[in-house]
């Protein structure tokens, strides 16, 4: 029990809780090599595709992500977002031809922030726990990894109908293909930003860790309120 509380301890003010830093740094180096050899060149190629194809792909993947977002909206008690995202999913899957187009946006149903089981655990008060770097998948925390495991244990409808229960229409390869394209799409959208961070960081591992943890905190807060990164007390100390 004590071990569990250490692993999930909330570390809002004490900075990153990097319990496995040495292993994490090694995994990070491996992932960076993989990125250099595969993801970056593929993303550069993807960027050369005509803009409508990339937008359509991005839209379809976003539409698919509603299958995880909606159950998490409900688990977080955010029923209005659940209704909003369900309506978006139904409109875009039909009128928008499996989500390639986004007619729901034209009807005033704007795209909302994605939700996942890691965020839901965070909303429920579970601390992020130790920071970990997963091979291929990248930065995570113990809490977010548990969240991903929930997805693979029945929480993700897309995983269920592709991998767990091969149906007549979609199969296992569709799931892994969608995840791979999703990674490439994200990487392609952030090519310059990644390059800039890579070139101008004095400790890239620490920079990525900070960015990941800040981003997760912001997503869990789910609001536009000023979060701890902009807390005045952080800055007041330099005036003393």
């Amino acid at each position, binding site marked *: 029990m004590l071990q569990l509380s250490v692993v999930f301890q909330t570390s809002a003010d004490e*900075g*990153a809780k990097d319990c496995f830093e040495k292993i994490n740094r090694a995994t990070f180096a491996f992932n960076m090599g993989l990125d250099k050899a595969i993801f970056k060149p593929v993303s550069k190629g993807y*960027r050369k595709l005509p*803009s409508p194809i*990339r937008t359509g792909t991005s839209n379809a993947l976003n539409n698919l992500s509603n299958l995880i977002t909606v159950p998490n909206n409900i688990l977080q008690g955010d029923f209005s977002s659940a209704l909003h995202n369900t309506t978006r999913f139904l409109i875009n899957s039909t009128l928008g031809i499996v989500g390639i187009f986004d007619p729901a946006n034209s009807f005033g149903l704007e795209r909302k922030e994605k939700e996942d089981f890691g965020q839901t655990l965070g909303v429920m008060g579970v601390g992020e726990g130790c920071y970990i770097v997963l091979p291929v998948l990248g930065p995570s925390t113990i809490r977010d990894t548990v969240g991903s495991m929930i997805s693979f244990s029945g929480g993700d409808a897309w995983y269920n109908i592709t991998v767990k229960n091969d149906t007549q229409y979609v199969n296992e390869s569709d799931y892994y293909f969608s995840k791979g394209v999703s990674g490439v799409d994200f990487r*392609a*959208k952030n*090519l*310059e930003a990644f*390059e*800039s*961070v890579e*070139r*101008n*960081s*004095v*400790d890239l*591992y*620490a*920079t990525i*860790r*900070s*960015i990941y943890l*800040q*981003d997760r905190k*912001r997503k869990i807060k789910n609001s536009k309120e*000023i*979060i701890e*990164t*902009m807390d*005045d007390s*952080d*800055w007041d*100390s*330099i005036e003393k």
Partner: protein
Amino acid sequence: MKLLKRSLFSAIFFILITTNVSASNPSEFISDLSLKTSEILSSKITDDEKIVKLKKIGESSVDINGVGLYTLGKYRKTLTENQKAEYKKLFKDYFLKSFSGRLVSYKDAKIIVINEEVKNEKYTIVYSKLLGNSDRPEVKIDWRVYTKNPENPLIRDLVIEGLSLARTQKEEFHSIIENNGGNVQALFDTLSVFANN
């Protein structure tokens, strides 16, 4: 006549981009700054020339000393006077190189100020967005403007899509010091290598 016009235009352009951004209203200050930065980034000069100009902008519009002290975190209190002076110089060189290096890769950067929130007499948050294009999505950027001297507002932090650059830098520096047994000199060496590379 053509040559005179061109020279006059170049002179005005040069004055515009090298003069301190002096608008006293934080939103105007950020708008002016964004416009000048955008003009530099889209101009047809070499990257090295852009970097020189961007460094001038950074020097006049960012509270480099304040950011430097903030990013040092708890180790700030452990420095001797000599170390403080050394850090101040190293950080300035590091910051300006990093600042201009990050910006120069953006060829097409148009920022629109949306509104501002006066937090107290010392800080105003200016909310803006970097317009998206076919390769890049729209990005929300919040600027923490230090307004202790209202005549000379200075930037202390950029929060991009909720991610604070100052905080990221603070954690990066903290990691370097911690991984070297709490030795601040390791950070100084790293900053020196970065600035001189």
